C-alpha cells in the first residue's frame, strides 16, 4: 500500500477507501475461484448415497451448477454487489440471514476476547517492559509465547473440565440458556443487547455468564501477541526524550512508567487490534467449535463439510469483507491520531 501518494489527510482517507473496491473484487474472485474449481458438490454430499446418477445430475442442473463457470461468476459478483449472498444449498437458508442471526455471537465473542486479552496483556506487558531483561520479563514473555502456542481447543476443553468439576452450575456451552434464548425477544441479533433492551437482568446475567469461558479462552490466545507488542512499546517509550526529561526531574520510576511511557504505548494498540483481527477470526472458528457457540465460524465449518458452495462462499466473502473494513477503519483512525502514519 506504499503506492498511495503522500498528501493531505482527506486525500489519504479517500484513497484508502477507494482502494477497498478493487480489493473486494480481488477477494471475491479468489473466493469464487477457490471454491468452484474444487470437485464434489453439495447435492452428492447431502443425499448422494440414496440417489441414482441421473437423479443427481438433474438436481445439480436445477441448482444451476452445470452452467458455464463464467456465467456463474458474473452472477455471483452481481448478487454480492446487491448484498445478496444467495441461499444455502444444503438447508435453504438465506446467507444474509445467517450472517444477521449469527454474526452477533461472533461479534460479542471477539469483542469479549479482546477485553480479556487487554485485561491480561496490558499489565503483564507493562511489567515486562519495565523490568526488561529480568527473570520477571522472561517469565512473562514465555507466558506470552506459550499462550499463543497452546492449541485453543485444547485450552478450551481443559477449562471446561475444570469448570464442570469445580463450578458445576457454570454454563459451558452456547451463548445463553434455552429459556433466555426463548424469552428474550430478538431485536438486534446480538442477544446481550436484546437482553439489556428487554430490561431483563436475569437474562443479561445469564448471557454474560455464557460469555466468560469462550471469551477468556480466545482472549488468552490474543494476549500472547498483545503482551509482546505492549512490552516493546513500553521499552521504546521509556527511551523517549520526554520520559527521560520526566526522569531527570526526579519523578519516581513507577510513576514515569504509569504516567508517561505506558499511556503512550497504548496508541499502537489500536493498530494491533486491527492487525490481530484476522488472527482473532481464525481463533474464533476454533473457539466456537469448542463451546458450541452459535456464531459464524461454527456454521462455516459445518458448511465446508457439507460442501455447500453458496454458504461457504457467502460466509468467506463476509469474513474477508469484515477484515478489509476493519483494516480501513484502523488505518483511517491511525491517520487521524498520528500524522506520521500517512505514507
Amino acid at each position, binding site marked *: 500500500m506504499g503506492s498511495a501518494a503522500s498528501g493531505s489527510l482527506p486525500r489519504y482517507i479517500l484513497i484508502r477507501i477507494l482502494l477497498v473496491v478493487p480489493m473486494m473484487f480481488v477477494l471475491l474472485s479468489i473466493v469464487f475461484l477457490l471454491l468452484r474449481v474444487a*470437485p*464434489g458438490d453439495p447435492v*452428492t454430499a*447431502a*443425499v*448422494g*448415497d*440414496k*440417489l*441414482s*446418477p441421473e*437423479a443427481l445430475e438433474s*438436481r445439480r442442473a*436445477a*441448482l444451476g451448477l452445470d452452467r458455464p463457470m463464467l456465467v456463474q461468476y458474473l452472477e455471483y459478483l452481481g448478487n454480492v454487489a446487491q448484498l445478496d449472498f444467495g441461499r444455502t*444449498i*444444503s*438447508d*435453504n*437458508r438465506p446467507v444474509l440471514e*445467517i450472517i444477521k*442471526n*449469527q454474526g452477533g455471537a461472533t461479534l460479542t465473542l471477539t469483542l469479549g476476547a479482546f477485553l*480479556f486479552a487487554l*485485561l*491480561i496483556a496490558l499489565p503483564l506487558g507493562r511489567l515486562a517492559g519495565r523490568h526488561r531483561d529480568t527473570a520477571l520479563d522472561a517469565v512473562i514473555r514465555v507466558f506470552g509465547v506459550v499462550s499463543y502456542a497452546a492449541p485453543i481447543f485444547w485450552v478450551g*476443553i481443559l477449562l*471446561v*473440565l475444570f469448570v*464442570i468439576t469445580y463450578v*458445576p452450575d457454570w454454563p*459451558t*456451552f*452456547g451463548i445463553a440458556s*434455552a*429459556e433466555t*434464548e*426463548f424469552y*428474550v425477544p430478538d431485536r438486534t441479533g446480538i442477544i446481550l443487547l436484546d437482553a439489556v433492551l428487554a*430490561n*431483563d*437482568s*436475569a*437474562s*443479561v*446475567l445469564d448471557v*454474560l*455468564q455464557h460469555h*466468560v469461558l469462550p471469551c*477468556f479462552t480466545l482472549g*488468552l490466545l490474543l494476549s500472547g501477541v498483545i503482551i509482546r507488542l505492549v512490552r516493546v512499546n513500553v521499552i521504546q517509550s521509556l527511551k523517549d526524550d520526554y520520559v527521560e526529561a520526566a526522569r531527570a526531574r526526579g519523578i519516581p520510576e513507577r510513576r514515569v512508567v504509569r504516567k508517561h511511557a505506558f499511556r503512550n504505548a497504548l496508541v499502537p494498540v489500536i493498530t494491533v487490534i486491527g492487525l490481530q483481527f484476522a488472527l482473532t477470526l481464525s481463533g474464533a472458528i476454533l473457539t466456537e*467449535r*469448542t*463451546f*458450541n457457540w*452459535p456464531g459464524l465460524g*461454527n456454521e462455516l*465449518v*459445518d458448511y465446508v463439510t457439507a*460442501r455447500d458452495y453458496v454458504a461457504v462462499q457467502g460466509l468467506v466473502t463476509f469474513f474477508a469483507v469484515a477484515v478489509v473494513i476493519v483494516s480501513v477503519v484502523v488505518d483511517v483512525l491511525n491517520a487521524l491520531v498520528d500524522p506520521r502514519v500517512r505514507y
Partner: protein
Amino acid sequence: MTRSRRALSLAGAAVLALSLAACGEGERDSGGGGEGGSASGSWTLGTTETVTAMDPAGSYDIGSWNMQYSLFEQLMAIPAGESEPVGDAAESCEYDDPQTITCTLREGLTFSNGNELTSSDVEFSLERNLRIADPNGSAVLLGAIKDPDADALAEGAIETPDDQTVVFNLNQPDLTFLKILSSATASIVDEETFPADSLLEDEQVVGSGPFMLSDYSASKQAVLEANPEYSGEREPASQTVFVRFFNDAAPLRNAIASSQLDVAWRTLSPTDLASIEEEGDVDVLRGEGSEFRYWVWQLGTPVGGDKAVRQAVAQIIDRDAIAENAYDGTVEPSYSIVPPGFGGQKDSFAEAYGESPDVEAARKTLQDAGVKTPVKLTLGYTPTHYGPNTVDEATELAGQLEDSGLFQVSTEDAEWEEYQTLYKQNAYDLFILGWYPDFLDADNYLSPFLRDGGFYQNNYSSQEVNTLLDQELGETDEATREEQIAELQDIVAEDVPLIPSWNGQNVAVAVPEMEGVEGSLDPTYIFRLWEISKG
C-alpha cells in the same frame, strides 16, 4: 495465573454491576401459554442432528424428520417398539389389493391454525412434495405414485372421493408403500398455508401434530409447545420441549454429562458413551437400532470381481474384534444384509462362514480357485462422514486381513463427496458404507443394495436376485414373502457383493428424572418427543 484470576473477578464485578443496573425482573412465566393442553412442564433435548428444513418437502435426514414427526401428522404412524403402522391422521389404511390403498381420515381434524384437515390436504401434500422435488428432499421415496416422465403426481394416482377418504393407485404392486405413508415424507401440510411449488420458511410451518413450532432459530434451538388443537393418540406429555442443536459431539457430551441438558440423543461417540456410563450421573439408555455398516465389494476391479477373494474375506473378517476394538463394544456384529427384527431375517453369513473367523478355510477357498497369495487389496474409507471411528474399523479390518498372511492391504481415504465418486470409479476393491432405513421393511435393505449394482454401483447384477426382489415386493402372503427374503440373504452370503459388519444401537443419554425416553429407542429412529416428560 493470578493475573487471569483477577481478570475473572473483574469480569465478575462487571456482571454484578450490570445486573444491578438492569433492575426490574424480566417477565418469564415458564410453562405459560398452555391453555388447551393438559400437560405441563418442559425439558431440553440436545442433538447434533441438524435440521435441513422444517418443511416436509425439503428434507431427507433424521434431524428434520424428527421435527416433522412432532409437528405434523402422517396418515399412519409406527408406535414405539413396533414395526407395523397404525392409524394417525387416518383411522385406518387398508390394501384393497397389492396396488391399491384406501385410507379413511379421523373426524374433525384441524391444523394448529384452526384450518380443517381433509383428504385434499393429503393429496396436496404428496403432490407438492413430488412437484418441488427439492434437492434435499425425499420425493424419491414416492416413486409408486410419481409420473415417470415428470416431477409430478401420476395421473389418477390419488383419488379423494370425499373429505374423509383417500385412495392410492400405485403404479406397481408395492407392499412397502403403507410404511412410506407413515414416514415424515408423507407429512400432511395445510394447503392454505404452504405454497404449492416452493418450500415454506422454516419458522412458518403449521401442522396438526402433537406439537407446534413456537420458536425456531436455525442451528441454535427450536421450541416446541403442545398443540391445543391436537386430538389424536400421540398426546404430548410435556407442555414445552426445547431442542438445542450442537455442531460437534464434544460440547454435547459435556453438556449432558453435567446435566445442563435433560436428554442427549444422537450422536455421541463410543468413548463418550462409555465414559458417561462410568461416571454414572446420567443414564445411558440403549434400544435396538437399525443402523447398518457394511463393506461393499467393487466387482469392477480384478480383485473384487473374483468371487473366491470375496468369500475368503468374508471368511476372515472378525466382527467381534471390530465391534470391541473400534467401537468399544457399542455395536452388534452383523451376519446378514438384513438386520435382526425384520420378518424373514436370518444370519446367512454365519451359516455360510461360521461366526468366528477361519483363516484356514479362507486359504483353502483361495487355493481351490487358483488365486495367488498374498492378494493385493485396496480398502477405502471416508474419515468424517460416519464419525471418527470409521478409521479404526478400516485399520482393524486391514490388520485382520494382513495377519492372515493371505492379503496385502493398502488403505485409502477420501472426503465424503469425493469418496462417493471414487468408489463408483473402481478406486477401491472393498469400501465401507453405512445405511439408515427410510422405512422399516426388510426390502429397504435389499432393493436399494442388490438391484443391478445397487445405489453404490458395484457392478453386481443377478437376474435371479432381480426376479426375487420383484416377487417379494408384491407378495401378499407373509410366509411366502419371508421365504423369498431369506433366499435373497442366502444368495448374498454366497455371492458376497458386500460383507455385513455391524448393526448400531439407538442410544440416548438422559438425566435420571426423565420418563419415556427408553421406550422410544427403537429401530425407526423416530424420537417420540410427545412421550417424554421430566418427572
